[in-house]
């Protein structure tokens, strides 16, 4: 099966305050349509790994492949484009642009990509909101909706450019169990219905147990 994301011998060091070897020889991959979670104690380097995978952190050794193409060493403009087109993010804190409406938040990455007309983008955005059952909120200001709703808006935004993979950094970490279940169900549905690949960092065992595969990390190394 096609590998959406793959790392080969990734090492990462923190230089401040003292030299610290955070990630040691990481070799993982995510296949198309797979729903993978990364588990581990705090400080084991799982988030650090996620941000390397996200292409936002370029300070590492080793090689990173997206859709079986090497993206290590590309310049920042190319990386921005890759993030825009192929990667969707969902963070623990919802990170919406609070001054924009829900709809505008969802549309923004597509407007940046500028592959479709404004009408198409707006139609797509409304479709995504409908999938997540928050289309009623479209015109509300992003700062005026509840935490669970915000997280769903963030998921809609991550989906807008039909990315190859969605990366989540504790996407349920800040939600109550009802909303957590809700978000998990959404991810699961996307994975099954649309064949979307997902890689989610979490320390919620219930959440992880229900995913296709768990990558367990400890002290910067992959356990299994």
């Amino acid at each position: 099966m096609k590998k959406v994301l793959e790392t080969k011998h990734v090492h990462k060091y923190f230089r401040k305050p003292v030299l610290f070897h955070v990630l040691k020889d990481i070799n993982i991959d995510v296949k198309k349509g797979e729903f993978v979670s990364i588990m581990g104690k705090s400080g084991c380097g799982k988030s650090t790994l996620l941000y390397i995978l996200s292409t936002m952190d370029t300070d590492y050794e080793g090689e990173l492949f997206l859709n079986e193409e090497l993206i290590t060493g590309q310049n920042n403009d190319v990386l921005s484009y890759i993030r825009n087109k192929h990667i969707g993010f969902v963070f623990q804190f919802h990170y919406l642009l609070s001054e924009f409406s829900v709809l505008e938040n969802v549309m923004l990455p597509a407007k940046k990509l500028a592959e479709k007309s404004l009408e198409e983008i707006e139609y797509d955005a409304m479709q995504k909101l409908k999938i997540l059952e928050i289309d009623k909120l479209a015109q509300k200001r992003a700062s005026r909706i509840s935490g669970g709703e915000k997280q769903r808006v963030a998921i809609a935004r991550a989906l807008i450019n039909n990315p190859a993979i969605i990366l989540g950094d504790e996407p349920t970490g800040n939600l109550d169990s009802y909303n957590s279940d809700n978000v998990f169900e959404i991810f699961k549905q996307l994975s099954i219905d649309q064949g979307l690949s997902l890689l989610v960092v979490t320390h919620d065992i219930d959440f992880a147990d229900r995913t296709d595969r768990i990558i367990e990390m400890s002290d910067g190394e992959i356990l299994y």
Partner: protein
Amino acid sequence: MTNWKVILNIAKTHLLTKFKQTSTAALGVTFGIGAYITLVCFMTGLNKMLDDLILDQTPHIHVYNEIEPSKQQPVDLYEEFKNSFKVVHSIKPKLSQSKIHNALPIIKYLNEDKNVRGAIPQVKSQIFYIAGSIELGGNLTGIIPLEEARLFNFQNYIIKGSTTDLHKNDNGILLGAGVAKKMSLDVGDRVQISTIDGEIFPLKIVGLFQSGIADIDNIQSFTNLKTVQRILGESDNYITDINVKLHDMSSAFQMSQDIEKQFKLKAIDVETANAQFQTGMTIRNMITYAVSITLLIVAGFGIYNILNMLIYEKMNDIAILKATGFSGKDVQMIFMSQALIIGIVGGVLGLIIGYGLANYINTLPFETEALPTIKTLPVNLNPMFFIIGISFALISTFFAGYLPSKKAKKIDPVRIIRGQ
């Protein structure tokens, strides 16, 4: 790759949601530019008025026949004493005519020069004004009234009557305001003029003249060139002074040197004659620019400050934009365009306010003896100032926005997303 529509839309949303801060920043620019326009229009207006006062009525080159001792004494010509040390006591100037020799051909020659706007003759004479039993010493200058008006704005100093009145009346006189006041004379009255030789001529007062300098107004009067020549009993080639006005004032010094050499006359250029005035003008201009630049720099720092604050507040937005695929350059452009929008809006408002204030100043009454024709404060609404103003607004906001936006470009989204 840059998608301006999206970037401007984000910039616009940021500016509108932080309307208070935006308007404070824009007002900073508005006041800076407004004050600059007002100040520079007013100051240059005043400068121009002072220019007119001193420079417009003074000739660029004044040619006359100076009475002075010969530079080369006869003993210098004597071969026998060539190598000796010579002492000559009690040198006196040689008796010579006070008129300019061959004045009319010289005037014709000067008028043919391309750089000369006009060269006109004057006859200066010492006379007495007689009213009843009072005799007042004074100067009577013969002029060509219409030419004086054309080249030296002579009409600006005539408070009653006009140059044409003098031109039409062969027996007319433009009496100094001080003289008129002393002898309680007015337009339409007659005044007796006595030459040094004692001959008396009655002249009709066609106008009053006021230069603003009391010492001049108390003695000086003007009449037609021919009238003075007639009073003095001289022919019409009797001319004591030639006033030259040039197209380009800066060549005055060189030209005066040439005239001295060519015609063996004394020629004084305007810069030599008004050296302190020139210095004063330069210093006033320097003050104007120093104050304006200070104002604009202060406004620039205001923008810098507010954008800096805005970027700290928008850290999360910056991180999220970067995470969703906006490049550092896009983020920089978002903040740069915010700075420039503030600059344009503030700058244009500043131009309007400056224009309004300058026009208001122009209506304020300002009466001075020195310039009888000026009734309100002078302003100089030169379009150049408005161009400089808006350019400076844009340049200063550009730099004020550049540094903070550079910072926004470099912000590491990972640190912010993980830091929370």
